[in-house]
């Protein structure tokens, strides 16, 4: 391969210099895919017309290895993660910002593929990338590509999911199979050979949340169980409400492949990360209606009512196991470590 081709196909430091190379990178690889009326003027800030009401603002930094994984990539992750942080507040996303730190040497075809998936995820979530930035760092100093996205969302009238509204008897729902993102990334990272069978669930949840909110159910609390898994969110809920949670293992959606892989690694699927899952707490009487609404949406076909809020003391998360036994569920320590044997 000649030097020229390397320059043509890879990110070099000059792409971050602010000159002609930067302009070529943006006009050749970034802007055409994201084009929209907020971004197109390329002003220093995007200008939005916002109706009166409550606005949500969130930000998140994304780093994942490998940057392309089964079922998604860091671009899709960066859009969906921020969209989901807005969605679980009951907000409709109206704009995202996108800041990318590119590492010298990054293959431009990889960047192109990631830009495509950013564009398609944004389209799926019906949200424009309104503003952005790119920087380039030296080889071996940037993990390939890291992305930070911020998001603005509008909260509709009368929508107020909040932990404080959760009460005894409320039903807990989840929209589909858990643990798929964490296991897919782990499989790809470690070459465990499950990559064709197990895909990340990374998906924007704003549409599913909108359907649920419009169904007329009393939606009391929403959260996307990402790092820390379902266990982390349930533990937060028990702690935050000072109430107990009872969940039934047999009702928690989990595909056989995810179950087997978690077993192989000695991991509890409840503690493994998701990127397209929604945990919803609704009033007990609305459980069936909420379930039907979720199942009507493509991202909720395998939705299930997995448990309920109880007044058992002390406040704990308790799992009724498939075997019919009981055990508690705790928030995992930072990094779940696969077992030795």
């Amino acid at each position: 391969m000649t030097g020229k081709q390397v320059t043509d196909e890879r990110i070099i430091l000059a792409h971050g210099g602010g000159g002609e190379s930067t302009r070529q990178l943006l006009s050749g690889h970034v802007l055409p895919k994201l084009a929209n009326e907020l971004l197109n003027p390329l002003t220093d800030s995007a200008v939005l017309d916002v109706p009166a009401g409550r606005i949500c603002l969130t930000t998140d930094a994304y780093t994942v290895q490998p940057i392309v994984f089964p079922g998604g990539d860091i671009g899709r992750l960066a859009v969906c993660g921020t969209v989901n942080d807005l969605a679980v507040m009951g907000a409709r996303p109206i704009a995202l910002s996108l800041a990318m730190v590119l590492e010298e040497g990054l293959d431009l075809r990889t960047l192109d593929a990631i830009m495509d998936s950013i564009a398609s995820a944004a389209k799926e979530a019906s949200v424009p990338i309104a503003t952005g930035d790119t920087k380039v760092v030296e080889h071996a100093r940037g993990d390939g590509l890291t992305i930070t996205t911020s998001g603005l969302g509008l909260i509709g009238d009368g929508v107020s999911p909040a932990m404080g509204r959760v009460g005894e008897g409320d039903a807990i729902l989840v929209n589909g199979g858990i643990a798929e993102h964490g296991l897919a990334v782990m499989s790809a990272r470690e070459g465990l050979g499950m990559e064709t069978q197990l895909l990340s669930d990374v998906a924007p949840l704003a549409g599913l949340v909108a359907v649920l909110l419009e169904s007329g159910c009393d939606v009391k609390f929403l959260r996307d169980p990402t790092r820390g898994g379902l266990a982390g969110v349930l533990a937060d809920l028990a702690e935050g409400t000072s109430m107990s949670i009872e969940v039934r293992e047999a009702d928690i959606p989990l595909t056989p492949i995810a179950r087997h892989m978690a077993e192989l690694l000695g991991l509890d699927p409840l503690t493994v990360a998701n990127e397209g899952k929604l945990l919803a707490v609704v009033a007990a009487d609305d459980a069936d209606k909420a379930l039907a609404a979720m199942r009507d949406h493509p991202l909720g076909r395998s939705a299930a009512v997995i448990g309920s809020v109880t007044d058992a003391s002390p406040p704990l998360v308790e799992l009724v196991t498939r075997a019919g036994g009981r055990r508690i569920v705790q928030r995992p320590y930072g990094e779940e470590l696969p077992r030795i044997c």
Partner: protein
Amino acid sequence: MDAGRTQRLVEKIHTACEHLESVRLMEVCGTHTVSLFRSGVKSLLPECIKLISGPGCPVCVTSQGYIDAACELAQRDDVTICTYGDMVRVPGRSGSLELQRAGGAKIVVVYSARDALKFAREHPDRKVVFLAIGFETTTPATAGMILEARRLGVGNLFALAAHKLVVPVMEAMLSAGEVPLDGFLCPGHVSVIIGCDAYRDVAGKYGKPCVIAGFEPANMLEGILGLVRQVAEGRSEVENVYPQAVSTRGNPVAAQWVGQVFETSPAIWRAMGEIPSSGLDFRPEYRRFDALEQFDVKTGPDYEPAGCLCGQVIQGKADPSQCTLFAKSCTPVQPVGPCMVSSEGACAAWYKYNRAQS
């Protein structure tokens, strides 16, 4: 899983226990400890059955001296440590490998010995030391790694080896006679390698029933039922409720690999000291893979962190809750001893899954 089947097994266990005041069963292996808690099986058993965690968590039985030697190696600029994930958080005299990593030491978590070989081949400029611990389940993988490294002429791969054998430690505990036991729930995966015959002396000479079981809830219940029935009927036999995977003689290929690279040797166990013929050391012709010899490092003396009862816990002499540090100054976030670090450790399992401890 057929919930009806587990329910019927639970009922049979209750029936078999009707005339027994107390049945003390040791699950030898950490995988059983965790599976019994995680599946809720423990909560379904009659009160007279006491399940005692045994010395079968690979990280937990590893002596502190070994951890310190691993940390010493990690501090060398030319060394990359490849290790199973569980090991990185065990505190040693100068902190854990996790802390060393934060300070710049090169520590790579691998899922198998093969990954360490791959890493060594991809990084010929690094001296790669694999932390080779574990029982018969992981030993063939280490042996396979070394045989393959020799075949390929890989000169930069070494192993800090502290592999251990399950049956000798069971016999040592029975000989010491300090922990009253009525039988052993024997690990399915280890038994795939060593076969049912390996437990013959435990059942015959020591008169303790041994039942080999896998890790599915129903299979663990079948194992417990087998043990309770043997105790009730005064029998002590080796029984296999996991015949789809475990044979009488074990895996001859695995045995051949291990026998080629290693020979039986005395081994230091945490808090239990040296147990004869309970470990594996390199055969002379494979010493060039021995990290201790190649880097002139010594595994120092074993010791317990102040107040830590891990040494007692792994021998079944104490429950985790009897340790004054448990769930107070020792938690999964800030572990003092290895039983709280390892996902197979008894303390971690009690902390994570046992309602009474919360």
